[in-house]
């Protein structure tokens, strides 16, 4: 997915190309809950930007501020170069959004739901409304169910219809808050394909999720939130690369293996059942394997496991992926 941002010659240059830029963005809800705390977010044009964080970390709150649904307590947010929420009229026609799950008029058909939302956009051309709605329905695979009342939709179908609404017009930015919620594996795969397609067309996609592998699979950039604060942001590769992988040896002779690995200078060795893990040393790993075999250790598996985003998250926040109170 890095091609998408690489194809963007200007993206690294000025700050002017950032599709989203927030400075010290803060939201305290009326109840006193500090939901977002001094957020400095920079989303480059053309990126597929993963916005990652456990439940309650402030992802939806941030998105609400970006699309002008709520007013920041302090700080600023610029979307497509314009301040929000002041410029909603100019900015939002270029932004497709799925926020906190879909919401539909149950007594209207899927198609009529789209027509109504399109009618709400004063810059949308009524003459092309029906064709655009049909194209959007087709894009999310809902053509067959277009005439069905939305209250008869399954959760996944509702989610698809919400996505269709975001795709009613060509957008420069798509803001998707947990878009694969409620989708079956097939549906998830389709959404990922769709996101890649859209990104290929040059649309910037801002994707919130608490599913790490989802972000790993489609995103070029990632930001990690915890308890309303930004923990890190950057290209997805650098985040995981900052963490070294772990050497994993699978063997029935775990105790012997652990001893040999320590002798060979492997740090932080730990044995768990038939798995022995440790920090890989800087020299050729083949020699390590030879040492194990010469010592009579029966090796079933030998290799380095890449650090996942989950590991990255743990390392960054020093805590698990749990809900903060």
């Amino acid at each position, binding site marked *: 997915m890095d091609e998408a941002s690489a194809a963007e010659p200007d993206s690294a240059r000025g700050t002017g190309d950032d599709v989203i830029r927030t400075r010290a963005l803060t939201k305290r809800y009326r109840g006193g809950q500090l939901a977002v705390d001094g957020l400095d977010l920079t989303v480059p044009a053309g990126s597929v930007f993963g916005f990652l964080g456990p439940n309650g970390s402030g992802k939806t709150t941030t998105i609400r501020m970006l699309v002008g649904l709520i007013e920041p307590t302090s700080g600023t947010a610029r979307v497509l*170069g314009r301040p929000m929420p002041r410029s909603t009229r100019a900015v939002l026609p270029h932004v497709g959004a799925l*926020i906190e799950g879909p919401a539909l008029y149950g*007594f209207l058909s899927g198609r009529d739901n789209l027509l*109504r*939302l399109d009618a*709400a956009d004063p810059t949308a051309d009524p003459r092309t409304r029906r064709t655009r709605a049909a194209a959007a329905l087709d894009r999310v695979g809902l053509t067959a169910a277009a005439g069905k009342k939305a209250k008869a939709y399954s959760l996944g179908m509702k989610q698809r219809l919400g996505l269709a*609404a975001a795709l009613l017009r060509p*957008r420069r930015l798509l803001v998707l808050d947990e878009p694969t919620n409620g989708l079956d594996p097939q549906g998830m795969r389709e959404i990922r394909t769709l996101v890649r397609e859209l990104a290929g067309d*040059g649309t910037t996609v801002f994707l919130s999720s608490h599913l790490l592998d989802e972000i790993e699979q489609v995103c070029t950039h990632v930001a990690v939130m915890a308890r309303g604060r930004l923990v890190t942001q950057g290209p997805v590769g650098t985040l995981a690369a900052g963490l070294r992988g772990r050497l994993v040896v699978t063997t029935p002779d775990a105790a012997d293996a652990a001893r040999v690995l320590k002798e060979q200078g492997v740090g932080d060795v730990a044995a768990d059942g038939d798995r022995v893990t440790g920090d890989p040393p800087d020299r050729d790993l083949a020699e390590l394997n030879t040492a194990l075999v010469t010592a009579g250790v029966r090796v079933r598996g030998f290799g380095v496991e890449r650090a996942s985003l989950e590991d990255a998250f743990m390392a960054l926040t020093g805590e698990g992926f749990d809900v903060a109170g």
Partner: protein
Amino acid sequence: MSRADPETEGTARTARPAADTGPVTEPAGAGRAPSPLRTLGLLRSELSTTFRRWRTLALLAVLAAVPVLVGIAVRIQTGDGQQSGRGGGGGPAFLTQVTHNGLFLVFTALAATLPFFLPLAVGVVAGDAVAGEANAGTLRYLLVAPAGRTRLLVVKYATTTAFCLVATLVVALSALAVGALLFPLGDLMTISGTRITFADGLGRALLIALAVAVSLTGLAALGLFVSTLTNSGVAAMATTVGLLITVQITDQLPQLHAIQPYLFPHYWLSFADLMRDPVYWDDLVKNLQLQALYAAVFGSAAWARFTTKDVTA
């Protein structure tokens, strides 16, 4: 997404080779005033959404049934050979006249529904206008469409006002149909005792329906304001209807005489003055002014609230 779209707006965008990936510092001209006709698109959508709702249709059906019940009751009573009595609370001297002229059923039915049934229906529709969308979550999608908060509120008020008119006309037309079926039609007597032609009577019936519809617009604004205060459609409807009942009672208490001229239902029954000859305009005009005042005050309050509100639902 760079699929050519004929309506992608403005020269600012089309001049650029790759519009979707171009610099974002100068956003495309989507903010330029869209044609006012496109605001009508939202109004049309809102009207059809409101009048396709099962609940709206049920309210209208109940309202249409009231004249049927009144008509049948009067018919049965007179069929028994009794004089049609003054009971029934159907407004001034109208009920007694129904047996002689079916047109009076229109006045009777409006007088019977104006104190409670009609405002109840309006309270439900107005209370649900914003809160119902918030409740369903559709409000956030309308706002990011972007419908524009002021524009959405104006469209909501216009639709509620349209409902006031439609609801009143449903009562009037149902009454006219039932009256024509069950009773004779013809020239009629005004309250002042003069005779007017049936055509003149029909004209006055239409004026009365309009006066009744206008009587409801103050309540519509109040309901819309309440609707911006909560995210629960049911709570907004209940509050509006509760306010209606409280105000109706307050309007009857002699001790509260001083404030009564400022209560929105105070001049509601002034529509009967349209049946005088000549028409007595004073209270009708006062009613109009009072409704305009309520619409202005609560319309502004609704606007102030809705345009600054955090939409988290």
